[in-house]
């Protein structure tokens, strides 16, 4: 594949490939508060920690020393308890490898595909643009007056908010069973240290308009009410390690939740309270944001949980077109919110015909799989597509359009000219 020239850098004093890092947004203190993963530049399945995407819905909290850390488990349990990090590490550990994907990843592709289907010319969102924004206060926009959604989109590209990682911790189930969960338990409300007043601009950007009222919960801690069934899942963790090292602050140290298959907003960071409840809690980021529905006024909005079924073509890219006639490997990644990917089909004729791609098998159901197929590329214009099917038989796309434009899993065409 004749890709653009490989970039170089000095790594440990040696000339080497450039090591791609995050595309960070920083606050006025120079601290990273948001970052996208250059996953098209990476190889393999595990995203290096320095390249793992970062999103926080509220203000990031001040770090807590691991020795000073504790969280409580309370509510509908026989034995309320307080755990330190060392207490947690004495319990039977468990490691999972899984994709973390922000619910809003690729959100602009909803509009792009609609425009394309109607013959429109909305530009295709880019997964190769590497923006760096300094001195940004995402959470102070509402107070700053007028909101320019177009400018906001350029400041906050909504692609590449997905990564694959290894997480080590203890099963949430282990902690819940030791606490003696009562039969009345319906949900586990997990609360983080992160605190703030949700900025309505985030929702305006997500919905794509500003002409509606956004619920104001005041200053809150970030929390989610995980249904008891998912909380008891053997892969749901309270994790203290990531990719072979202790969690970093931006990823929720000392302890965060890992909810494989479900969107990143469920993976509560900086945990300080686990409350077992006999009803679903009214969490802002569950009943007002990250909800599906036809519009802001839809009375039947539903919380969004598992990701859909998704494939991304990582080679070839439109940016490399035109390409000389040759035999190419079409490659990509595929993942699902409900288990392993079992099939990926590829079309090189705009979806007219489909052929099975080779999937690299592995044992981690919630980690993306690499796939590839050979393509004898002849001169002309070609529209490449890929679609995946998971172990539940769900074939991409499975997520219906929703007004907050979350969980995009549409089939994104790649247009390539062959000379």
């Amino acid at each position, binding site marked *: 594949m004749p890709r653009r020239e*490989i970039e170089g850098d*000095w790594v440990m004093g040696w*000339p*080497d490939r450039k090591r791609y890092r995050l595309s960070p947004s920083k*606050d006025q203190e120079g601290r990273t508060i948001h970052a996208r993963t250059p996953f098209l530049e990476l190889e393999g399945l595990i995203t290096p920690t320095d390249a793992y995407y970062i999103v926080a819905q509220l203000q990031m909290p001040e770090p807590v020393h691991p020795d000073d850390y504790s969280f409580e488990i309370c509510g509908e349990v026989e034995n309320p308890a307080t755990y330190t990090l060392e207490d947690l590490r004495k319990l039977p550990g468990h490691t999972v490898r899984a994709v973390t994907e922000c619910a809003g990843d690729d959100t602009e592709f909803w509009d792009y595909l609609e425009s394309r289907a109607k013959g429109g010319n909305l530009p295709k969102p880019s997964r190769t643009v590497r923006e760096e924004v*300094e001195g940004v206060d995402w959470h102070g926009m509402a107070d700053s007056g007028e909101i320019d959604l177009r400018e906001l989109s350029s400041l906050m590209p909504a692609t590449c908010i997905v990564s694959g990682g290894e997480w080590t911790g203890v099963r949430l189930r282990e902690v819940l069973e030791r606490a003696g969960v009562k039969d009345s338990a319906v949900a586990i409300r997990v609360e983080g240290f992160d605190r703030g007043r949700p900025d309505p601009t985030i929702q305006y950007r997500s919905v794509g308009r500003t002409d509606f009222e956004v619920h104001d919960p005041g200053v809150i801690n970030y929390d989610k009410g995980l249904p008891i069934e998912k909380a008891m899942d053997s892969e749901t963790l309270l994790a203290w390690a990531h990719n072979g090292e202790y969690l970093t602050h931006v990823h929720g140290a000392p302890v965060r939740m890992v909810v494989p298959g479900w969107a990143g907003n469920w993976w509560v960071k900086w945990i300080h309270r686990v409350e077992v409840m006999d009803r679903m809690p009214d969490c802002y980021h569950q009943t007002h944001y990250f909800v599906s529905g036809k519009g802001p006024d839809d009375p039947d909005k539903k919380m969004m949980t598992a990701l859909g079924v998704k494939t991304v073509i990582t080679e070839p890219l439109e940016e490399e077109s035109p390409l000389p006639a040759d035999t190419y490997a079409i490659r990509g990644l595929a993942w699902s919110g409900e288990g392993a990917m079992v099939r990926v089909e590829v079309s090189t004729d705009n979806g007219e015909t489909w052929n099975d791609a080779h999937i690299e098998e592995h044992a981690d159901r919630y980690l993306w799989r690499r796939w590839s197929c050979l393509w004898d590329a002849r001169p002309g214009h070609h529209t490449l597509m890929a679609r995946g099917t998971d172990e539940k038989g769900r074939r991409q796309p499975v997520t219906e359009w929703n007004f907050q434009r979350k969980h995009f899993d549409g089939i994104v065409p790649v247009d390539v000219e062959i000379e």
Partner: protein
Amino acid sequence: MHIAVCIKQIPDPEIAPSLFRIDEDARRVVAIPGMSPVISPFDEQAVEAALRIRDALGDGGEVRITALTVGDESARRIVKHVLALGADDAVMMSDPAFADSDSYATAHVLAKAIAKLGTVDLVLAGRQAADLDAGVVGPGLAELCGIPAITFARKIDVADGVVRAIRVLEDGSETVEAPLPALVTVSHEMGGVRNASLRETMRAAKKPVETWGPADIGADIGEVGAAAARRRLERLYVPVSDTACEFIEGDGARAVAAALARRLVEEKVL
């Protein structure tokens, strides 16, 4: 054709202002632990200008690009960076005697180094260093070398023993020429710089980097570094910026505009 490009390492200008510290008693910028210095962006554009000249002249041009810097061993990082971008070789003027140079002392050392290099047809430098922003070393170096200087260039062409540059002016630009050898300082309007390629980075590992002290350039200790400095630093401090915001109110846009104009006149902005 031999091009010498002067580069300087500076504290990373992209760091948050809140991390920037000054020791007012010692009149020094305090190094930030873990924060590596970077090449001054204007100097990186000077390197890019040299590479563009080489690209324009093609294979037959036989352009050699030498990077020059005055700095301690920590400057090796930016030297390796410009070699990876495509410079052919580099010289580090690295000696304790060079410490605490001012603009004059730096220009003096660079002039001596250029003399030692032999035939240099074109000297390029950033329009100013992005830390102290003095913009003096380039013109001073030209003066000491006895060659013409063109400043604030956004485009440079070389042909038939003449350098032609488009200079950035406050209200536009002008095109000027000078016979070679000459010195040109490069402005940021030159445009983006290239990325280092893996192939060039691997080549860079084998490129020669020489380290010269005062004796190598024929300079006495008394004519370099702090001993030769002509600038007397009275005070080094971070100015306090007043961010007070005044909202102009009035009955309608016209009244607000008039009130705003009055305030601007009062503040002597207009």
